[in-house]
């Protein structure tokens, strides 16, 4: 089973500066995932000033450029993991070296077999 773990942050919250020690801790965590054979992908996203939002309405697509200052939570990065169960995904998520109000949403990635009864 593959899982998407999304890091969600409140862009308005003061999270302080990024410290090298935090980055080193994250690097160790990523290495542990890799050593376990669980890591498919890990990436961070630039802040929302580098992004846009496209909303689809009856009249067509409406584009709004970032930053998305009105958002209470924004995705800041993600992992894609290959694991045996949902429980394993939660156990790995708990080990992420965060301690500052971050939320991590774990979602299962659909596999072809999930679409069989629709197609």
């Amino acid at each position, binding site marked *: 089973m*593959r899982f*998407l773990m*999304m890091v969600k942050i409140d862009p308005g919250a003061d999270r302080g500066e*990024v410290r*090298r020690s935090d*980055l*080193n801790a994250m*690097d160790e965590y*990523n*290495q542990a995932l*890799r050593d376990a054979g669980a*890591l*498919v*992908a890990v*990436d*961070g*996203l*630039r802040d*929302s000033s*580098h*992004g*846009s*939002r*496209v*909303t*689809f*309405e*009856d009249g067509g*697509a409406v*584009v709004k450029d970032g930053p*998305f200052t009105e958002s209470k939570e924004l*995705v800041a*990065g*993600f992992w*894609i993991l290959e694991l045996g169960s*949902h429980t394993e*995904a*939660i156990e790995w*998520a*708990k080990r*992420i070296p*965060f*301690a*500052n*109000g*971050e*939320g*991590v*949403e*774990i*979602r*299962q*990635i*659909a596999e072809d077999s*999930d*679409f069989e009864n*629709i*197609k």
Partner: protein
Amino acid sequence: MRFMIIVKMTPAQENAVQDPSSFEEMGKYNQSLVDAGILLAAEGLTGSKDGAIVTFRKGGKPSVKDGPFTEAKELVAGFWIIQVKSLEEAVEWTKRIPGFADGESVEIRRVAEIADFEGIMSPETIAQEEAMRDVLSKKAN
């Protein structure tokens, strides 16, 4: 530049029954991304009932909340990762996504590259990151 295109839906839209023809249209769209040589990943997520949210607090243990997230205003339903030259190009590709016309919203975000961390990460960490990415891309191929 890599961009992550994140599809967001309301909890009600998440549970809507999908028309089989919408998969065909989406398949064609994805093929056009492949043909343009820009598609790195395209995935859909299962409903939030299969998910969980882990929240981290200072000095405390992480708390776990199981899905479904019925009170959420919007839920991620899927994503693409594409490699294009500019945000404008990413927006143009996004506008062509088929089957959305009912207020669905798609967020386009730039994926950070190693170069974005120069001066923040130590050179050792950057080297480790690059080595890890090499291994991951080899695994994927």
